[in-house]
């Protein structure tokens, strides 16, 4: 039992990082536009395929590939927002929500058109992943996993510093708090929302690369990812960024621990996540951090 613990922890960390990247985008978008973007998982899927296109098919070095994925995804986010969500900004939130489902379907169709419907993989024939054995062979970690963990940590830290200390970051938080007041201080709401989408889409795309590094690529891979990120956001308390990250870690750890240490088969992972979500919502109806925020407001 104990000997598999390091491996389970490592897998939990990987999964949590992936969910956190997607959940942050969801939370950022919800914080300002107050709708759940169901295309967020598909943004990740697109990221996975872009990396496949640039690096596996195109032969670019991986780090240029990641940079390209981030740039192309950010641009895609801005364009999608302008064309689809901006015209309905004043509508009730279920309208952009439904549109986001359509956007997801459209992205899937475009990727099938470009890459075909068959399952793809980053592991090419004959290539051997560099594997490190740690803790007396109980933990094996690949080079690419470590790299991607560093990329994720760097992105999260960068996002934190950006939101906390930069002028634009402060403006984003201000717009999330009160759009109308931010506007009368001269903040461009359109620009701010554009930035939010660029950041949210780019983070999701990196998550897509991470997940495709572990599993195969498929057109529908975004579905379960988006759903788990949504669960993380709700668990943490809607609108709270630290909440989204904590929620992602709770989900990443619990699904891997339960599957790793009990006889429950891994195909039940999603069921576990939702069981957990239901239980947590009974205990903390506002999410972990949402409740805290409300108490603070009352005090």
């Amino acid at each position: 039992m104990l000997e598999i613990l390091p491996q389970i922890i490592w897998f939990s960390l990987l999964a949590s990082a992936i969910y956190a990247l997607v959940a942050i985008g969801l939370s950022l978008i919800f914080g300002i536009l107050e709708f759940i973007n169901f295309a967020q998982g598909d943004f990740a899927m697109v990221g996975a395929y872009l990396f496949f296109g640039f690096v596996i098919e195109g032969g670019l070095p991986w780090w240029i590939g990641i940079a390209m994925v981030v740039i192309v995804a950010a641009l895609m986010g801005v364009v999608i927002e302008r064309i689809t969500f901006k015209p309905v900004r004043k509508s009730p939130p279920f309208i952009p929500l439904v549109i986001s489902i359509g956007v997801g379907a459209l992205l899937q169709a475009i990727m099938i058109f470009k890459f075909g419907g068959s399952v793809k993989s980053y592991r090419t024939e004959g290539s051997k992943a560099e594997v490190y054995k740690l803790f007396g062979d109980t933990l094996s970690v690949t080079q690419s996993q470590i790299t991607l963990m560093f990329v994720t940590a760097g992105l999260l830290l960068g996002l934190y510093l950006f939101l906390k200390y930069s002028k634009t970051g402060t403006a984003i938080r201000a717009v999330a708090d009160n759009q109308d007041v931010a506007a009368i201080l001269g903040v461009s709401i359109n620009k701010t929302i554009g930035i939010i989408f660029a950041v949210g889409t780019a983070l999701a795309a990196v998550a897509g690369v991470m997940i495709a590094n572990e599993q195969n690529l498929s057109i529908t891979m975004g579905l379960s990812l988006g759903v788990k990120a949504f669960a993380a956001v709700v668990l943490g308390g809607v609108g709270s960024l630290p909440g989204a990250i904590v929620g992602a870690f709770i989900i990443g750890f619990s699904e891997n621990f339960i599957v790793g240490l009990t006889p429950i088969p891994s195909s039940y992972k999603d069921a576990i996540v939702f069981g957990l979500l239901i239980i947590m919502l009974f205990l903390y109806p506002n999410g972990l951090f949402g409740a805290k925020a409300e108490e603070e407001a009352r005090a």
Partner: protein
Amino acid sequence: MLTISKLTANYGGPDILKNVNIHIKEGEIVTIIGPNGAGKSTILKSIFGMTNIVEGKINFYEENMVGVKTADVIKRGICYVPQGRSVFPSLTVEENLEMGAFIRSDKAQIKKDLHYVYEKFPKLYQRRHQKTKTMSGGEQQMVSIGRALMLQPQLLLLDEPSIGLAPKIVEEVFQKCKEIKQSGTAVLMVEQNANIALEYSDRGYVLELGENRLEGTGKELLSNKKVGELYLGK
């Protein structure tokens, strides 16, 4: 400094303001009073381009203000404190104030602006790292006013600054308005709390159903029998 003449405006529906005339001179506090739905706030929103202006003029030092972008209205020296709790609750006091100078990019100047506001509101300096959602309504109102003063505007627009505040705090807010006026910023405000507002005002306007009814100095309106009956509860 600001002249609104024959202003007719709406929000895309029926006209809220009809042929309204208002002006404010340098160094004045001017208050617009009137019942709910008289269109008082709409006047301030029109200055900030948030309404649909059908007819009339808004001039600030001879310059036309109709159709001017928000950022440009601010640049020309008009700042606005909207109604209700208009702070950014999850931001600290200092971040709130810095947002007031969003259109500036000169960091040294923003430091000076902060200094200027902290001098006027020493309490805000003590609490500059506190999140504004943890503050009382009165303190939040001070943050909103302080934020609007960051650019040291020539004209400050206040929409119901006393709303939801305890009487003692209301007095404090109006006292601040007086200080603001003395440091060279004219104040145009809209108030429900007509008694005390007129006491602190140089002049006032009574608005009813989107039209001018009466105007005069603060004292004149306070002693006007009709105004007393209708709005001052005398």
